[in-house]
């Protein structure tokens, strides 16, 4: 770990494909790299079918079986950070268009041969009406064209997901509600089908023991990543102080998110966690628990802290919370101020460039100030992520 403070982490992407990215992470320690891996696998929200209402099922598979299989179908979830709410954060009672997506499947076999029901038969219901509408929001405008559709529905090159097979006379008719969630709740919400993670391909650090009959080197094949490292010399003494510093990742997504979005969201998610921890340490009640409106008084703080050299400066409550809003998120969501990093100009902050120009900084600190209860950017609340979600622009430029 020694020395990593000075050396900045570096990353080298070896390969990007539509659904995977292979990169090498250097100058970080094992715990850091592992946390990145864990965050990418389990902390990124996506959309997946969560509730299934079966109207007719005369296939050979029982309802539960089919419901489970439906849950596993990856749905396009690009920018689901902003495009959809968690039902638990929504004002509706059980689901509305802002926190869920409805899909229907209605297939019957009339031919004299086996028919395959696949994810391509799932149709998103466009304008569905729910009994209870949640508080209106701008989520719908943030959704991409295919938001919530099964991955690869319009792509002939991608084989669809087989849900069940049926013979003549059988029918399957059902209604699904897809919701936003993270893989900690259920693995179906994981954007990744696999994240491979390797370090020390020669086992120089002896973090593992290679069992062998006669010759370890002959019996244990080297991975591709071994080409990146020096093979150990025969006279090399074991360096028991050595620490791993080079990590080989391959993040493979299931298509619900692109590899770029998955990785970037994972990093952002880690930062959110840390920021919440800092906020938790900083905010014994008096400062951050002020009602949102009072944060308006704080702009002086908010202003001073960032210009004083960064968000890292210990500032008092309001000041502290404000810089984070724009500083850490690679750009705060357009709704949330951000003198950060978005393209258009016209912002209060010189270097800052926020997409919508009405982001005066004062307003920003009111919103960004930790305690504001409104869901969008109070990052102390449960809906934290939204506050500094990746900005729309950025997300749009990502590929899925």
């Amino acid at each position: 770990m020694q020395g990593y403070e000075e050396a900045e982490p570096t990353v080298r992407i070896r390969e990007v494909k539509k659904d995977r990215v292979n990169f090498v992470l250097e100058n970080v320690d094992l715990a850091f790299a592992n946390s990145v891996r864990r965050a990418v696998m389990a902390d990124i929200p996506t959309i997946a079918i969560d509730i299934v209402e079966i109207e007719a099922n005369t296939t050979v598979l029982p309802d539960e079986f089919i419901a489970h299989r439906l849950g596993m179908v990856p749905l396009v979830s690009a920018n689901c950070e902003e495009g959809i709410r968690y039902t638990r954060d929504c004002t509706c009672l059980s689901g509305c268009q802002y926190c869920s997506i409805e899909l229907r499947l209605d297939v019957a076999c009339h031919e004299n041969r086996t028919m395959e029901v696949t994810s391509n038969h799932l149709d998103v219901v466009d304008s569905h009406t729910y009994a209870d509408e949640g508080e209106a929001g701008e989520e719908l405008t943030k959704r991409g064209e295919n938001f919530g559709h099964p991955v690869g529905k319009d792509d002939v090159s991608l084989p669809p997901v087989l849900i069940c097979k049926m013979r003549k006379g059988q029918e399957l008719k059902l209604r699904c509600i897809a919701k936003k969630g993270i893989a900690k709740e259920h693995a179906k919400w994981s954007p990744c089908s696999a994240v491979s993670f390797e370090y020390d391909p020669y086992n120089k650090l002896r973090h593992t023991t290679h069992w062998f009959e006669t010759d370890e080197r002959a019996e244990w094949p080297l991975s591709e990543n071994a080409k990146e490292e020096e093979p150990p010399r025969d006279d090399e003494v074991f360096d028991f102080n050595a620490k791993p510093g080079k990590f080989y990742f391959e993040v493979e997504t299931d298509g619900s998110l692109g590899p770029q979005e998955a990785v970037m969201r994972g990093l952002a998610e880690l930062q959110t966690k840390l920021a919440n921890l800092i906020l938790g340490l900083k905010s014994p009640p008096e400062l951050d628990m002020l009602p949102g409106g009072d944060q308006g008084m704080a702009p002086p703080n908010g202003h001073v802290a960032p210009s004083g050299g960064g968000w890292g400066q210990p500032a008092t409550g309001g000041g502290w919370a404000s810089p984070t809003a724009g500083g850490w998120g690679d750009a705060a969501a357009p709704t949330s101020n951000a003198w950060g990093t978005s393209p258009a100009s016209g912002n209060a902050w010189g270097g800052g460039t926020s997409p919508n120009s009405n982001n005066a900084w004062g307003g920003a600190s009111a919103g960004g100030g930790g305690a504001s209860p409104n869901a969008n950017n109070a990052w102390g609340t449960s809906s934290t992520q939204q506050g500094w979600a990746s900005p729309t622009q950025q997300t749009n430029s990502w590929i899925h």
Partner: protein
Amino acid sequence: MNAPNRFELFVLDDGEKPVEVSEDTKIPNAATFKIMKQDHTLGNMVRAYVLAMPQVLFAGYKVPHPLHPYFLLKIQTDGTVTPQVVLEQACTKLIGSLSTLEAKFKREFSFKDVEGAVTEDPYGTTGTSGQPWGSGRDYLDF
């Protein structure tokens, strides 16, 4: 039927404090942090960074029970700074590293072209001139 909501494993309850600090009564300059609704992802990373700081004598974390969604982080310092400050510095540093990494990822991704990729970077990878905070850190400049 009476199963608790699964999201209670990672979402703070209403009014629940994310961190509880209890100072050690027997060991000088030591404190235990109970970090709610977090797991090894945060715990191990923070532990490693805290431990790497020169003022820290001890840092360790544990998840007492896999079904209980919190972890304990114990930090002892040499007395020049309090464990709280050390933890905060470590987190700040980590966020710095992550932001750097994020910027580098962004740059790398913009170099690698994928089919259907938008090649031009709407944010401009060249950086914003005259950043008000001008700290020389470049994780904000994409």
